[in-house]
């Protein structure tokens, strides 16, 4: 992972970081007003995220304050006499997106963060994504490693519940490792084909 100054990663603090990062990716694809960006975000991230339009406006304002987006009053396409705020990327947006792609933040909801990164990744971000996916795979293995082993048949109700919980943790982590491995494989295969 890259070592970067805290100034440049300040916008990456807090639980909404994946949404802010995804918004930067969308802005780089094309500028848009708050409602448009909220719709594109919802379409990209699907059912796993409940994107609230008001949150998107709030996050865009935050990005503007940190210099990663700039808004301009522009006439509406449907009605030239009325205007709305359209957000554009700045000179720093692309570099910020690259930094986000290669930064694993402490206490970040890693899976959701990775999903958000994947949703707006550019092909040049592939090496960063592969590193992040591998780090996530390892994190899941480490978590599985810390689950205490079951040494036989449960002899009490409490032990049975514990066993079932343990089984659920393994099932979840296994799914995550499979997802990370499959995603890495698909990215690698795509890169090999496009060479």
């Amino acid at each position, binding site marked *: 992972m890259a070592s970067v100054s805290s100034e440049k990663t300040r916008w990456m603090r807090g639980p909404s970081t994946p949404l802010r990062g995804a918004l930067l990716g969308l802005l780089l694809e094309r500028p848009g007003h708050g409602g448009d960006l909220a719709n594109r975000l919802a379409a990209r991230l699907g059912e796993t995220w409940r994107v609230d339009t008001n949150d998107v406006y709030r996050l865009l304002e935050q990005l503007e304050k940190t210099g990663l987006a700039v808004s301009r009053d522009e006439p509406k396409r449907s009605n030239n006499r009325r205007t709305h705020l359209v957000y554009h990327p700045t000179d720093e947006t692309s570099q910020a997106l690259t930094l986000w792609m290669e930064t694993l933040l402490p206490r970040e909801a890693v899976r959701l963060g990775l999903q958000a990164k994947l949703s707006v990744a550019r092909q040049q971000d592939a090496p960063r994504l592969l590193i992040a996916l591998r780090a996530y795979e390892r994190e899941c293995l480490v978590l599985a490693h810390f689950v205490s*082993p079951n040494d036989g048949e449960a002899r009490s109700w409490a032990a049975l519940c514990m066993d079932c919980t343990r089984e659920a943790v393994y099932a979840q982590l296994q799914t995550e490792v499979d997802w990370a491995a499959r995603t890495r494989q698909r990215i690698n295969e795509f890169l090999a084909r496009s060479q």
Partner: protein
Amino acid sequence: MTPLLSFLNVSKRCSDGGREVLVLDRVSLEIDAGASVGVYGARRSGKSTLLRLAAGIALADSGIVRFDGRDMAKMTAGERGRLLRGAIAFMSAEDWRANPGESVVDHVATALGSEGLTMREARRRALGILDEVGVGAAGAQEVATSLSLTERMRVMLARALARKPRLLVLDEPAQMPNLGDRDRFYALLRSAARERGMALLVASEEMAALQGVGVLMSVADGELCSTEEQGSVVRLPGLGLARAERSG
């Protein structure tokens, strides 16, 4: 200290229909005596290939696999065969080859054929080991071909342990219909390895089957991912050293 088993930049290709697939891509790992390593991977992820290379059943296309400091590729087929009947035990649920009508005790006793024991001595030793893995005197007289999968796994373990291996390689032993049986089998396996100071290399497509191992790895897309820091060596309490990394 020389690791018991080491892979250095090992690659292996397998053919899939008309095309060649890179199953392992410059994989490096080290397993010391007494260490236990679990390899998780989905179907066709390369875990069986990794284990077959570790047991000397298959040879690497490039890179070096060493057992006890000796390059497996430089051994003759006969030497590798002897290794597989002695210092390395390879177990696979698909590898159950009991002769028709053979009793469980005889199935285990025949594994000791190369040790110069009389059949009576071999049976006596087999009974002792069967008892250790939870197969009593009555079970030992059953016809081996009539055993359930769970019973077969215990008998296979007894057969493997009878040769006093230094490394037990276990491929995909999960698939047991009952989770309680599976967990009991694994607890037995771990304690047998611990008591004998035997290294374990176990692969499964169920992560839960690998609980309690010293190092957990995953294999996918030719790469290994491990709970150990890449390139670092971590002492595992009472288990010696184990290290896994992918280099290159």
